[in-house]
């Protein structure tokens, strides 16, 4: 979604494809092949805006199928289509001169998992294509469990290759490659608690600039690290589950980010005919600006949109006026309602509101001079198991 205006950060799209590939349902359920297959349909409607400008609107239907095969195998596949359109500022949050775009993206991924005694191995492939950006990725993930199944180690490697051809032809035939590794452990802590720690490291080289932003010139390599800690806790009193997470992120742009997530899964028991669950969620995010991000100059400064110290000619230092690389904090509040109709059918609706502001950055000042970003998300999904 919105990838054509964000080709610069599209390495992150590949990373998200890989991350998504690592979440294959087949790998999720410990070390036994799933007893049931499932097919899921989902629809997303996303819209964001800033004061005075509606920005990106995306509609995205998707379908996902997971099937156990021959007792010890599972196959999973997903297809997603995004229809994205709208406006993006060419620099900072400037409304004038914002670029308008409309694009369709299609993505598919497939994964095959083999289940062994206390271990799994998953091979995954992903493809994503749109007018100006094509990405292909491959991943291999494995898990290994202790004999009592209370400890599970996870390992993964993945790589991607992207081809970039922006419609404004500012560059032609650019490429980017990334490689990532993952290591993690999941540990049962008590009959009511389970925790997980995951480390990832990614290296990429190639074209990282956002070709639709002015004066966007980024290093041709990027290294990223994440540490993710998750904890699920079952509350006997209410039968609810608290799902908590914290992610630390750091990269070679000198962006440091903290993400706190909390979900409260509350089954409603026999109320309303039974089968209902409500899930409120809260997410807090804070990041520092990239080292080469530059602030907008005060209003009316002549030549204000240029990076400081800009001199025309080749050999520019790195710079970017991309809001996504500024320092800011963001909050998401959402509610999901799930209805299990019977053993086979499940419906859910999820609504989220997101707001991003420079002044909300935690512990330090965020980047000044940018308009806040508001986004709302609506998702509807149906799952059928067999």
């Amino acid at each position, binding site marked *: *979604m919105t990838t054509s205006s964000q080709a610069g*950060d599209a390495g992150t*799209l590949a*990373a*998200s494809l890989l*991350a*998504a590939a*690592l979440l294959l*349902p087949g*790998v*999720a*359920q*410990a070390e*036994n092949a799933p007893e049931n297959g499932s097919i*899921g349909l*989902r629809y997303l409607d996303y819209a964001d805006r800033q004061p005075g400008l509606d920005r990106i609107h995306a509609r995205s239907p*998707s379908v*996902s199928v*997971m099937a156990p095969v021959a007792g010890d195998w599972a196959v999973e596949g*997903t297809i997603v289509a995004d229809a994205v359109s709208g406006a993006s500022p060419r620099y900072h949050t400037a409304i004038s001169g914002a670029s308008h775009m409309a694009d369709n993206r299609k993505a598919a991924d497939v994964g095959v998992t083999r289940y062994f005694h206390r271990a799994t191995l998953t091979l995954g492939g992903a493809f994503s294509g749109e007018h100006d950006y094509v990405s292909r990725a491959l991943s291999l993930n494995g898990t290994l469990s202790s004999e*009592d199944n*209370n400890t*599970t180690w*996870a390992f993964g490697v993945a790589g991607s290759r992207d081809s970039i051809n922006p419609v404004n032809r500012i560059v032609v035939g650019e490429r980017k490659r990334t490689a*990532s590794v993952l290591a*993690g*452990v*999941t*540990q*049962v802590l008590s009959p009511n608690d*389970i*925790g997980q*720690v995951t480390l990832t490291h990614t290296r990429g080289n190639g074209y990282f600039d956002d070709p639709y932003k002015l004066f966007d010139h980024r290093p041709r390599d990027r290294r*990223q*690290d*994440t*540490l*993710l800690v998750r904890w*699920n806790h*079952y509350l006997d009193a209410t039968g609810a589950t608290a799902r908590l997470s914290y*992610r*630390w*992120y*750091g990269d070679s*742009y000198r*962006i440091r*980010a903290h*993400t706190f997530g909390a979900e409260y*899964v509350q089954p409603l028991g026999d109320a309303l005919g039974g089968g209902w*669950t409500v899930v409120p969620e809260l997410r807090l*995010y804070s*990041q520092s600006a990239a080292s080469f991000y530059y602030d907008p100059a005060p209003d009316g400064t002549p030549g204000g949109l240029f990076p400081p110290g800009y001199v025309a000619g080749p050999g520019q230092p790195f710079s970017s006026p991309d809001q*996504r690389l500024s320092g800011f904090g963001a909050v998401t509040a959402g509610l999901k309602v*799930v209805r*299990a109709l019977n053993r086979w059918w499940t419906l*859910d609706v999820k609504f989220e509101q997101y707001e*991003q502001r420079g002044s909300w950055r935690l512990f330090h000042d965020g980047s000044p001079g940018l308009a806040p970003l508001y986004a709302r*998300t609506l998702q509807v*999904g149906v799952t059928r*198991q067999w």
Partner: protein
Amino acid sequence: MTGVRSVARVVPGVLAAAMALSGCASVQPWEKGKLAQPAMTFGASPLAPGLETRYAEHIYTSREGASGGSGVGGGGCGCN
């Protein structure tokens, strides 16, 4: 980058401590009824579909500087 190293250094120690705390009273296979519930697992289920997580990853990656980090799920009912 050094930030990750110092945090990662702590992780095995924390894990060993957690396991020691739970370890010698380690959870038996028949005590995993609550852990078997979909909400308690880290993987996908009809309660937390893979597609939903995928959309979230994609949205945040498109609007923020950080990306990735999600790991594979684990745990479950201890069923074989």
